[in-house]
Structure formats: C-alpha cells, structure tokens
C-alpha cells in the first residue's frame, strides 16, 4: 500500500469512528468530538512544531492554552466602566512599575561590571521594586474587585469581536513564550521540561487568583459568540421551516447548526495553520530546524545560531497553542481556570503528537482527532464494559458500585497504554516523518 493511500485510509477510519458515534449516540456528540478534535489538532501542530521539528521538550502546553483562553475574555467581554473608574488606572500603573523593576534589574545585570556593587544594586532594585509594586497594585486590585463582586468584580475586556481574540491569544502566548525562552532555552532538555511545567502551573495560579483580571475561580461566563445563538434560530421562522424541510425539530436543528458553524470556522483555521506548518517544514528553514534537532553540534559548526532558532520555534509553537486555547474558550463560551489540568491539556496533547507521528504535521492532526475520540469514548465504553463484568453480581454490592463508579478513570489508564504501545511497537507514530 502506498504512502498516500495508507494515510487517507487512516483519516477515513477516524471519520468512520466519529460517524459511528453519531449513529450510536447522537449527532450532537459526534459534532462535539469533531469540534474538539479540530482544536486538539491545532494544539498538536503547535507541539509538533516544537518537538517534531526542533526536539524541544515543552510540557507547559496547558499554560499557553490558558493564556489563549484569557485572551478570549480580555478581547471580547464588554469593559466594566465602574471598575475602571475605581482602580483600573492604578492597577495598570502597578503592573508597569512591576515590569520596570524587572527591566531595571536586568539592565543593571547586563550593564554594570560584575562585583559586590552589582549584586547589592540588583537586590536593592528587586526588593524595593517589589514593595512599591505591591503598594501601588494592591489598593487598586481591592477597589476593582469590590465593584459588584457577585456579577463582575473585574476590569472586563475590550468588547471587540471574539474572533479577533484568536490571533491575539496566539500573540499573548507567543509573547510569554519569548520571555520564558529567553531564560530557559539555553538549558538542557530535562531542565526545559521542568521549567515549562512550572511556568504552566504559575500561569494557572495567576488565572485562579487574580480576580481583577478574569474573575479567578468565579469564572467568566457568557463570552460572546462568533456564531448565532440557538434560541435566536428557534425563533426565526425561516430557520424553523427549513429545519422542518430536513425533517428535524427546531431545537435539535439549531444545536446542530451552531456546532456545524463552529466546525466550519475551526476547519478554516486548521487548514491555514496546517498549510503554514507544511510550508515551514519544506522550506530551507524547516530543513535547518531538523538539522539542528538531529545534530546540534554540526549545525552550530555550520554557523547556525542554535539558541536563536530554538527561541524562534518555541515562540511559534506556543503561539499556535495559544490560538487553539482561544478557540477552545470561544467554543465553551466560558473561562473556567479550575478546569485546566496538566494531564488533559499538556500530556494528552503529547500523546496526540507521539501517537500521530512526531515530525509529521498530518500525523499530528490525525493524532489530535484519534486521541480526542478515544478520550471521549473510553468513558462510555468503560461503563459498558463494567456493566458487562458486573452483570452477574448482586445488585447494590459494594464491589459493583465501586467498579461502576471507577469506570470513568479508565481513560487515563487507556491513554497511558496507547502511548506505551505506540512507543514500543511503532515508535515513529501512525504517520511517520518522511
């Protein structure tokens, strides 16, 4: 079987799997899997850029995804004028002072000659700056958070169309990635992994605790949508009559329509990103990246600036993850920092890339769809399996209820098993790198 035929067949298999879910469960479930699969595929392309192209071990995907989600809130939610009047400017000044402190310390470190004077200077700037920063910021934060805390209590966003937040989410994630990369990319691969793991936890901690920014664990709900609302469609006589023409009742038709609209939008983004990633892979730049990945020393001897190229691709890959994160939050319609879990948002994306085929963009896309499908469907399959196993047991026995209750945790086990099996028997993934 030739290469393209095999790959097409693999994609067909995934499509059939999703269609089976549509027939067996409901088309709403199937479309939800498709939409999340599209988002996951974009995340997987982002990680594949970093790992597959350049061999960078980034386990902070969750942080960049969450930054994208933050962008969705900051761009699309309406601003809260009362909160701005109460302390918005003060918060901004506080943040600027904080940034100035760090820049000042870095300037002293780079400009002043090494010695006790420099060390004292840096410590003085950092300690003094920290207290000034807290002194300015804290009252502002308190003022903002006390404005109507039950419903708002944050500064709000810019009130722009939510689609704009997708590229802005990418920019935000890319900007943070630049800061991290500047400090951490010179380090060995293990250290980079731990550093990115830590950064992701810190970003989530900020989202959870800084209520003035995005309401923290109180969540932001009702983020504007780029597609129509179901209720509007159901009240639209044209839509109801055309739904009747398809033989569907208006409620189901409207939910399907909305999900299809999202799928269309996401598909466009995925195709654009995929095209760009393919172009990058085939370009001289892509060949250079892979050369650096395969032999850093040789590439350096050829005059390539390895650290700089690593920084470049680290920023690009993280930006793609941020973009996907903004899309995800748009799809959910809410930002819930409590739901960001590293297993789901970092390591699952890694499973997608490894299973799909690291170094191959189509592999990453395939892995995104396939693993997301498994992640969703393992749970009902697990419950079904447990029902079969426990069917002989007495009703209400402790073991039976325990087994049934634990069926939901089968998905982690399955993901680990899939990852280990692929690594062992097909280490290059389903669609290997050419």
């Amino acid at each position, binding site marked *: 079987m030739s290469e393209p035929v095999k790959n097409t067949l693999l994609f067909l298999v995934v499509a059939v799997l999703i269609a089976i879910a549509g027939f067996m469960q409901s088309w709403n479930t199937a479309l939800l899997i498709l939409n999340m699969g599209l988002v996951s595929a974009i995340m997987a392309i982002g990680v594949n850029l970093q790992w597959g192209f350049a061999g960078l071990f980034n386990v902070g995907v969750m942080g960049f995804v969450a930054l994208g989600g933050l962008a969705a809130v900051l761009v699309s939610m309406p601003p809260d004028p009362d909160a701005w009047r109460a302390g918005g400017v003060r918060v901004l000044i506080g943040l600027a002072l904080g940034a100035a402190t760090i820049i000042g310390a870095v300037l002293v470190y780079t400009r002043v000659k090494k010695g006790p004077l420099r060390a004292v200077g840096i410590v003085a700037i950092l300690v003094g700056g920290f207290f000034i920063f807290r002194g300015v910021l804290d009252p502002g934060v308190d003022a903002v958070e006390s404005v109507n805390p039950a419903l708002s209590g944050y500064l709000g966003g810019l009130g722009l169309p939510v689609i704009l937040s997708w590229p802005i989410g990418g920019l935000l994630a890319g900007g943070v990635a630049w800061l991290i990369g500047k400090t951490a990319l010179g*380090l060995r691969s293990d250290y980079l992994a731990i550093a990115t793991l830590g950064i992701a936890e810190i970003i989530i901690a900020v989202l959870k605790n800084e209520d003035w920014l995005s309401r923290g664990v109180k969540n932001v709900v009702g983020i504007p949508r780029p597609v129509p609302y179901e209720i509007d469609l159901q009240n639209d006589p044209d839509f109801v009559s055309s739904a009747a023409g398809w033989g569907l009742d208006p409620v189901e038709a409207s939910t399907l329509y909305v999900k299809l609209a999202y799928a269309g939008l996401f598909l466009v983004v995925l195709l654009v990103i995929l095209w760009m990633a393919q172009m990058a892979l085939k370009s001289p730049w892509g060949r250079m990246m892979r050369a650096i990945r395969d032999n850093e020393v040789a590439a350096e001897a050829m005059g390539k600036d390895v650290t700089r190229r690593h920084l470049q691709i680290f920023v690009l890959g993280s930006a793609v993850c941020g973009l996907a994160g903004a899309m995800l939050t748009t799809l959910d319609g809410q930002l819930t920092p409590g739901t960001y879990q590293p297993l789901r948002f970092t*390591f699952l994306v890694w499973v997608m890339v490894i299973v799909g085929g690291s170094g191959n963009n189509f592999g990453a896309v395939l892995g995104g769809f396939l693993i997301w499908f498994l992640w969703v469907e393992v749970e009902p399959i697990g419950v079904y399996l447990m029902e079969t196993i426990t069917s002989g047991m007495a009703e209400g026995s402790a073991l039976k209820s325990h087994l049934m209750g634990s069926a939901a945790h089968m998905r982690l086990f399955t993901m680990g098993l899939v990852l280990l099996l692929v*690594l062992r028997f097909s280490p290059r993934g389903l669609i290997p790198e050419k």
Partner: protein
Amino acid sequence: MEFLNAFVALSNYVLIPGIAYGSQLALGALGVTLIYGILRFSNFAHGDTMAFGAMVTILVTWWMQAQGISFGVLPTALLALPFGILGTMVLLVVTDRVVYRFYRQQKAKPVILVIVSLGVMFIMNGIVRFIIGPDDQNFADGARFIISARDFKAWSGLDEGLALRTSQGITVITAVVVVVALFWFLNKTRTGKSMRAYSDNEDLALLSGINPERVVTYTWLIIAALTTVAGVLYGLDKSFKPFTYFQLLLPIFAAAIVGGLGSPLGAIAGGFVIAFSEVTITYAWKKVLGYLMPEGLEPDGLVQLLSTDYKFAVSFVILLIVLLFKPTGLFKGKSV
C-alpha cells in the same frame, strides 16, 4: 519575653512545618536523583509512584484498623508501611521489566525514556484513581500531638503556644532513619558501591564485572522504599489526594535540580531550600513582627509576600536562579 514569643510563633508556623515539608521533599528528591544518576532519565511518574505507595499503605491501614490492630499512640500507617513498600517494589520491578528494559537495551536517548515515563505516569495515575478514587482520604490515627499548644502555654507561661504534631515528629525521625540507611547502603555495602560506580561511569563499571540489570533492579527497590515512605509521610502530615501527589512533582524536581541532579546530598539540601523558601515567602509575618517590632511600629497588614496559591512560583523562581547562576546545582550534579 517578646523575643521568646516571636521565636515560638516562628517555630510553630515556619520552622517546624518547613522541616517536615523539607524532609518529605528531600525523600522525594532522593528518588528522582537516584533514577537520574543510575537510569539516566527524569522520571515524570515519580509523583504517581508516591501516590501508589501511599495508596497500598492506606488500604492495608484500613484493613488493620478493621481488624483492631493498632500501634498505640503512633499511626497504624507505620505498621502498614512495609506492606506498602513491598507493593510498590512489585509494581516498579514489573514496570521496569515490561516497559523500561526494552529502551535500556535499545540504548534509547534519555528524552525518549522521559516520554515513556509520561505513559507510565498516565497508567499509574489511572490505577490509583481506579482503586481508591480521586478524593481526599484520611488514614491518620493515634495521638494527634506530641506537644499541644495549650500544654506548652501552661508549661512556659508564654502567650504563644508551640504545637508539634505527631505526623511532623514522625516525618523528621523517619526521614533521618531512611537517609542514614540509604547513605550507609550506598557507601558501605558492595551493592551500594557498585551502584555508585555504575552511576559514575557505566562502561568502566561494566568492564569491572558489575551486572547492570542487578544494579537497576536494586535501584528500583530502593526507589520503591523512598517513594512509599515519602508518600505516606506526606499523606499523614497533610492529606492523601492523588492529584496533589502529581503536583508534588514540581517542587521535588526543583529540589533535585537545585541540589544538583545525581547528587544524593544535594537532593536533601535542595529539599530543605525549596521547603523553607516556600514556607517563609507565603507565611504572613504579622504575628512574628508584631512581637519583635517596638511599640507603635507593628505592621498593619499581613506582611505576606505572596499568597499561598503562588507557592509553585517560589520553587520555580529558585530553580531558575540556581540554573542561571550555577547550572549544575548547589552540589555538583552531573549532566547527561
């Protein structure tokens, strides 16, 4: 008096919790550092191995409690600990035979082994949640305090009470025993010496007739003991929840790297550095300063540098500072 009060408050909220937490981190970091030194990869499944060991211990503890077996004033979990260690030993040796050995024979790159350990992490996480569920579990029993705040106040006549919980005392004593035993093993026994030789130079060790598979098996057995002890102590001191164990990965790795990966002494030092910086930076100093500052100058606010939710940020920043200025860690570690 004021000074004594300040010191007691400081011990109560910073020194004692810091020492207990530091011992737990040190035990975890010792495991990470041993795996790094001998198997040469960063094991992401370490936190979940701790959770597994603690889980087996908890199950045995519950069984013992149901049978009416108790350890007097000490928690029953200490009696169950050997069973937990045995269970974890079986798990780790089986995992090594089924999963890791293949890649060792292939001489796979360390980063591949790291990804393999991600898969193991998923599986262990799944097993733990499957068996005991994702919720908090309480298994501490026996006396709660060695010194309770009220007794201390009555005895010393100070305003501040000093409380020393049983779990904190046990943590420190157990950690000291385990560390002494480990260092004795590594430095005095034949197997320990062969492990250190293998860690220093694999080829030379092979040439001098050291059996690598034996070294690796012994390493996993020691890791099983270390992780289970660390996991049980952490569970006794705080509480057992699978997800918290996963999150411990970050401070544990930070401790191992700050101390210098591959250096056991460094892992212990790193554990205490990380623990004390987390506790001091997230502690509200109002009380201590209130006693120390002259009349009228007492602080109004909490004097808390960072809220406790940012404790990850603390271990992370220390990690970055050490890496930027002393890339091999405080004690000279190795790099693969």
